[in-house]
């Protein structure tokens, strides 16, 4: 239970770190998303509207969706966040992308090539955090350390369309 709570709170922290918050952050939903199951984990959209609404910092994005990935026992193994950058965000800039990545986690991010996609990886408090960009959409996969298939889960998550 402690681990679940920690992961949930960290996932929300990531959301706030990345996107700031306002009502606008929760006003729209991503048109596409992950399948109902990924590697046997149940995928469910989480309601983060209240959390996002509680933060009044400037926004880089206008859509944020948070998915939880849980075992049958409800144990939370990972979260996937999908956010679309606003028009005025310099989302095509590699420096901008890296500056966002660098804000996450407590370790220096590395970049890993998975297929054609470059994925930034960092870690924080029992989590491995993978971040990648597809056009104006940013994906953040936070996986609990100890989960046995983090790379395979990353491969699955890379297939998700924004």
């Amino acid at each position, binding site marked *: 239970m402690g681990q679940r709570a920690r992961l949930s709170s960290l996932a929300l922290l990531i959301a706030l770190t990345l996107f700031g918050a306002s009502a606008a952050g929760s006003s729209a939903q991503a048109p596409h998303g992950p399948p109902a199951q990924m590697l046997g984990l149940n995928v469910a959209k989480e309601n983060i509207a209240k959390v996002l609404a509680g933060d009044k910092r400037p926004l880089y994005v206008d859509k944020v969706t948070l998915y939880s990935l849980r075992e049958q026992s409800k144990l939370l193994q990972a979260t996937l966040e999908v956010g679309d950058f606003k028009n005025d965000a310099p989302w095509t800039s590699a420096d901008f992308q890296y500056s966002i990545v660098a804000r996450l986690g407590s370790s220096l991010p590395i970049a*890993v090539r*998975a297929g054609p996609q470059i994925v930034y990886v960092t870690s924080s408090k029992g989590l491995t955090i993978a971040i990648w960009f597809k056009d104006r959409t940013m994906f953040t996969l936070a*996986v609990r350390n100890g989960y*046995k298939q*983090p*790379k395979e889960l990353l491969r699955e998550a890379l297939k998700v369309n924004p």
Partner: protein
Amino acid sequence: MRRALLAMLLLTTLAASGCTKVNQARDTVTRSINRTELLARGFVYTDKSGGHTTRVSGSVEDDLRYRLDASVDGNPAASEVVYDDARALQVQDESLLAGLVRSPSGNAVTLTGEAGVSAAGAPVSLAQLPAPLQSGQWVVDKAGATGLTVTSNTVAAPGKDPLLDAVTGLEYVRQAMGEAGSVEKFNPESETYRPKLDPFPRPQQGVIRYDLVPPALPQPQSGGAGGVPLSRPLPATPFFRLLAVYVRDGKVVEVRERINVAARLSDQASNLEARLGEFVKAPAGASISQQANLLLRTLNRQLQLRGQIPIRERDMDLKFSGLGRAQPVQLPAGATDTDLAALGVQGQVLYEHR
């Protein structure tokens, strides 16, 4: 006065342009390494040392999937497949098992005889390794490569784990550049070029060669605080390393390295022969080869006493092929499921530099 000022400005400008050239070569090689790492690739890594030839052929589909096959003196020695979270291993040459036990830092650890140190720092014996692995069969640990973060960004001293040496070859070059005195574009027309001392082939048409110039021989230090003599800085591997990087179309196609004491002794520009007496007392009339052997033994003894990496003489060649053309990597069929934890928890070995 005005002329003196102009002369000084000219000198400054010349010095600046020299520095710029050196930095440009280093930057160019760094960018070429970065570009090459971004590509699917095949490679053949050859290490000749101590009378043995170790060859590793590799195929990198991406940073999460690769296959390596090693042979020693022409005999199959070990193979490794990393396929996302899974790590499959086959070891035919028992002497390599020790080197394949990796510490949490990603480095190979010493495992001699019956006992060594596991990834967790606990003693581990060869008997603890899975039986199929000891008998030369393929084994696979479905969670043997789950680490997505890098356990260490320092490449281990080559020689213990040829599989790791081979797959991290480009990172090795990056670190060697950091240890070199400078990086220079190969120029056979240069007044300082001495073909007799150049162990590497000239670049083919369309290929640019860059050479890592070894650092200067360390100067003796006069004394530390309070007049207490400091320990003498010793020439280590970077001083004895000659390394050339061959670049085609902005990508690395080959790397050659020679680490050899006699070669540096023969090079008057290295100053080593003139200052040999600072490091070793060679008998009168000793040949270059005898002096080199004596110096190597003496330096390695002292380096090890100081906890530094000993000098390992070798000739290395790393050739890339099929850049950008992914060869799909697959786990070997019929591998026995096992737990390879005793061989260390594998962190992310390959990654990109941005």
